[in-house]
Structures are given as structure tokens and as C-alpha cells.
């Protein structure tokens, strides 16, 4: 089988980076066309998926004086209407346009950037298509639903020189003390860290309910397997125990990816392996429970649900203090949203650049596959495959429902 290797992309990116930082910071102005506003101008934005977390994101961007928020897209009419009213009230006009189909927002040449907060099964399609349309993107976490999606999203961002930020604010904001201790050298050489997070998502066979007229159900399902409407199936709540789409495998990786994006993101940042993906995932089935040990090429270990171990406990070598190194942080003011907007202006990579976000969610996906297969795995980050493991490689991706395609 000739599943496409990702080595092409990796080599290309290395070459491009080696040329200079320049390719990433090119703007249209550099090409002699002044169609990109100067940094002092407002970034024109639209939002895709505006319920729940999307509403929170909309509020954050609306509150920024350097953003002009002009359009919303959602599969629920009531959500579109509420989001438009919010924007119109903010600007005291009636300019915000509403769309049931996200492609109408992407087709607007006047929009510079979009934020995406749909269920996870839509993220890759939307991010990649947004890049093809020249939009910068703030995409909520978890950014991917399958391993194959990540490199393709990075490809699209780099190919079109787009700023694409992942969405976990907690990576920077919740783990500051831990990051300071690790990067400050206080803990010496880091041996391991433990993350407690879960559960995995499950197959959903909830019964059919009458589809409310408010929702475009076919569009909600999009690339996911067809299934009948059920309120819990598509609830945007944060439940991972059956009460929301975050519980179900066609739309989410469950708590393993949802909170995993935060905890694994914070952990891999703290121990400074966020640019890497694990090379081995050891599966343990002890009397104390099932748990994992991820191994990185530099020898650092990342435990998942290690028995009798608290979340984010770091094992270092305290007697061997290391020189402090400066930890990366947000650029600009206003948290992760400000970081994104600042980078849209400067064309720098954001704190949660899509490649780092993809690496984080890859930890979740790799662990999920190990738990599903109930065995240990080896992983080749460059090739993006489980070397010689035909069974595990089947889990790299899943076919999307027609007509949706990456």
C-alpha cells in the first residue's frame, strides 16, 4: 500500500527554513502590492462554529480594537442570529453577515482571518481550505481528529505562508510555575513527567430524535459517518461521558484529546519536547490499571495515567541544577488571542503555532491507538507512520463522508 509518506513535507520545510526566516514573514507588501493592511489597521475577521467555545472566542476577538469582526457561520440558525446581534451591538451597526456554510466566509476577499470552533471532525477541512483561500486561522483545540490531518494542516499553513494558531490558552497560562521550574533549571535534567487525562471517546449509537428545524444536520455531520440526529450527539457541552459530541469517536478523541490538548500541551512545553513527537509508546496493563509510557528520542519519558502519580508530576535531577533558559511566551497583549492577532500583523509564528499544536494532539492520538490495540507501538515522526506495523497504520486516518475531502 502506498499511503503517502510525509518525508517530502519534512524535507521541504527544512529546506525552506534553512533558506531564511524570510519565507514565513513575506507579506503582500513585500511583493509590491499593498493589499495587506499595515500593522496599525484592523484585522477583518469572521468566526466559524460560534456556539459554546466559539462564542467565547468571538467575545475575545470582538473585544480587541485591532479587530473588525464582520461575519459568522454556524449550522444552527439561532446561534448565527445571536452571534450577529452580539457583533452588531458591539459596533452599533448591522454589518455582521451570517452564513450557514463556512465556505461563504472563506470566499470573501475582505476577510483576513477566521477563528474555528466547530467539533473536531471539521477542523482539518476548514483550516486547510482557509489557508487555500489566504486566510490566517485561529483553530480551537484539539486541532486534529486523526494523525494524518496534522501534517496536511501544517503543509497548508506553510505552503501559503499563513499564520495558523492552535487554541489551548492553558498551555501558557495554567502551567507557568511548572514551566518556570523546568526551564529555570531548578529541577536539573528532566527525566519524566506524568499526565492524568481521559477518557477515550466511544462509538455512538444513540437513538434517532426529531431533527429540530434550527439545525442543518447534514452540515453538522459533514465528513463524519451519517447518523440520526440526537441532542446529546451534537451537544456542545464539555461532557466526555456521553453528554456531548466530545464523547464520541466520530467527532472527538474524548477527554484524551480534549483535556489532553491542555495537559499534554503543558507537559510537553514544561519538559521542552513540544517540537518532537514520541518514538515509542509502551502499553502497560498492570493490576493497578492500564497506562502508558511515551519515550522521546532524547530519552525523556512522558507517562500517561501512571498509577499513584499526580498529574504533571515531574521527575528531575534536583541535585544537578541546570542553567536557566528563556521560555517562549505570547507575543503582543491579550493572551492567546492577542498573540494570534499580533502574529497576523507581524507574520511571526504564534505561541501555539499549528506544528506545535499538532505535536501535542499527536501524543493523544498515539496513546489512543495503543490503548485501542492494547499493545506497545513504535512511531516514526518523520515518516508519520508506525514502522512495519500494518495494523496500527490503519488508524492513521479515516475516510471522510462524501463530498468532504482534505
Amino acid at each position, binding site marked *: *500500500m*502506498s*499511503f*503517502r509518506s510525509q*518525508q*517530502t513535507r519534512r*524535507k*521541504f520545510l527544512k*529546506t*525552506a527554513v*534553512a*533558506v*531564511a526566516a*524570510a*519565507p*514565513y514573514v*513575506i507579506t*503582500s507588501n513585500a*511583493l509590491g*502590492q499593498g*493589499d*495587506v493592511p499595515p500593522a496599525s489597521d484592523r484585522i477583518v475577521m469572521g468566526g466559524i462554529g460560534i456556539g459554546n467555545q466559539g462564542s467565547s472566542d468571538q467575545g475575545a476577538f470582538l473585544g480587541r480594537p485591532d479587530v473588525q469582526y464582520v461575519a459568522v457561520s454556524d449550522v444552527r440558525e439561532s446561534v448565527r442570529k445571536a452571534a450577529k446581534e452580539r457583533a452588531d451591538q458591539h459596533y452599533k451597526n448591522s454589518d455582521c453577515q451570517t452564513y450557514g456554510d463556512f465556505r461563504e466566509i472563506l470566499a470573501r476577499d475582505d476577510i483576513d482571518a477566521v477563528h474555528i470552533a466547530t467539533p473536531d471532525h471539521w477542523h482539518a477541512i476548514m483550516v486547510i481550505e482557509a*489557508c*487555500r*483561500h*489566504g486566510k490566517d486561522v485561529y483553530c480551537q483545540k484539539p486541532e486534529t481528529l486523526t494523525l*494524518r490531518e496534522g501534517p496536511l494542516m501544517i*503543509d497548508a499553513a*506553510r*505552503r*501559503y*505562508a*499563513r499564520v495558523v494558531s492552535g487554541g489551548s490558552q492553558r498551555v501558557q497560562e495554567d502551567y507557568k510555575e511548572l514551566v518556570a521550574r523546568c526551564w529555570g533549571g531548578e529541577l536539573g535534567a528532566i527525566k519524566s513527567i506524568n499526565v492524568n487525562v481521559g477518557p477515550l471517546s466511544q*462509538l455512538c*449509537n*444513540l*437513538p*434517532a430524535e426529531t431533527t429540530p428545524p434550527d439545525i442543518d444536520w447534514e452540515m453538522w455531520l459533514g465528513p463524519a*459517518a*451519517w*447518523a440520526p440526529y440526537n441532542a446529546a450527539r451534537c451537544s456542545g457541552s464539555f461532557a466526555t461521558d456521553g453528554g456531548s459530541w466530545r464523547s464520541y469517536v466520530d467527532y472527538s478523541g474524548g477527554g484524551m484529546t480534549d483535556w489532553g490538548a491542555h495537559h499534554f500541551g503543558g507537559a510537553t512545553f514544561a519538559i521542552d519536547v513540544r517540537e518532537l513527537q514520541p518514538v515509542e509508546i509502551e502499553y502497560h496493563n498492570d493490576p493497578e490499571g492500564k497506562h502508558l509510557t511515551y519515550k522521546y528520542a532524547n530519552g525523556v519519558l512522558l507517562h500517561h495515567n501512571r498509577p499513584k502519580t499526580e498529574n504533571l508530576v515531574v521527575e528531575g535531577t534536583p541535585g544537578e541544577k541546570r542553567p536557566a533558559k528563556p521560555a517562549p511566551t505570547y507575543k503582543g497583549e491579550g493572551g492567546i488571542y492577542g498573540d494570534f492577532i499580533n502574529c497576523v500583523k507581524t507574520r511571526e509564528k504564534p505561541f501555539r503555532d499549528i506544528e506545535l499544536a499538532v505535536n501535542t494532539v499527536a501524543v493523544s492520538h498515539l496513546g489512543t491507538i495503543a490503548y*485501542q*490495540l*492494547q*499493545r506497545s507501538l513504535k512511531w516514526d515522526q518523520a515518516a508519520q507512520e508506525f514502522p512495519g506495523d*500494518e*495494523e496500527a*497504520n*490503519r*488508524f492513521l*486516518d*479515516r*475516510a*471522510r*463522508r*462524501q*463530498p*468532504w*475531502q*482534505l
Partner: protein
Amino acid sequence: MLSNALEALKTYDWGTDRAVLAPIDEAVISTHDDEVSRRELEASLAAVLATPVSRDAKDYVCRKLMVIGTAASVPALALLLPEEEHSHMARFALARIPAPEAAAAMRDALASLDGELKVGVISSLGARGDEASVPALAALLASGDQQIARSAALALGDIRNAAAAQALAAAKPADPAVMRAVVDGRLACAERLLDSGDKSAAMAIYKPMLGADQPKQVRLAATRGMLACAGQKE
């Protein structure tokens, strides 16, 4: 009991007890090192696809065949490709079954399918990187169905070999959405060429994309690619 679980598939549907299928879930994993048992399980599951069970039951079977399916399951899955309700889940399995017969079944289906079902098959062949599909996909670039032409362009960009690059270079679609996909595919091919060290071929793709008639992001992509060409070590 596995036999009970297989029997339960006859009445399984949305809203019924999911737990009755647990023995099948367990058998899919536990037969990892037991080829004979796994092939028996595969045959039992594939046989269900030809019976009048619910859509949810067939979906479930396809999910399991995605994990354990071989060439032996391909005929049963291929029969579902033209069926509106089952085409996607048939691809769910076929797209991930490594046997070349799985790709061949999807290629064969291209000729008889139309509309969105055809788009689905095209996308799965592309995601699979199926080089044998290139001639068929190249012909579809000129399809009058915008969705099919666009899908073929994206699939060729996924495959990104020399033949795919040639087909995309020859495409002159009038539809902007198809053209966007063709350009994206060509850029993917250029990246592959760069990787292989063929800078002149990559430059030949990038250079015309610098024109003022191209969208901003395409000119950025071309500029970035040309800079990468300039920095490539011999």
C-alpha cells in the same frame, strides 16, 4: 460469546444496547496473533454485509473490517460502494485495508459512480496515494461536474508523482474552485520535486504563479517555493 454478538448484529440499530457487540470488539483485538481466528472473524463480519441488517449494523461491521479486513473482504465491501447509505462506510474500510485489491475495487467503481459517491471514492484513492489511479483522475479534471473535477485535482495533489504533476499542469479549468484545487495540487507536486532535488522542474511550476493575476496566497506560495529552490543544496 462471539457467536451471540454476531447474532445480535441482526437486531442491532441506533438506540439498542451497544454492549451486546463487546465480544466482537474484544475478538478484533485478541486475534492480533491468531491469524486463523482473525480470518474466521473477518469472514463472519463480511458475510453480514450481504444480509438485511440495519444501516448502523453495517456501519459497525465496516468499522471492524477497517481494522482486520483483507483482500477477502473486498468483494463484499465493493458491492456497497454504489449504495447511497453504505458507500462511505465501505470506503471507511477499503481506504485502510492495505491489500491492493482494495484500491483496485475503488478504481473499478469510478467508472460506474457519479456525483457525490464518485467524489468520495476519488478522495479515498487520493488519500491512499494510489498512483495507479492517476490516469483515471487526470481524465476527471475535465469533468463537467465541478465537485468531481475539484476532487480529482485534490487527489492528484495527494498522490503528487510525476504523472499527477503533468496532468495538473495540463488542466485549464474555468471554474475558480477547481482552479484553486489544481493550483494547490501543483504546489504539492512542486514540493515533491524540490524534495527529490529537481529544482528546475519545481521552478517551472512556481514561476508562472508569481503573476499579478494570481491570488495573494498563491504568489506567496510561489515566492516561498522559489526561495527554497534557491537554498537547496546540490
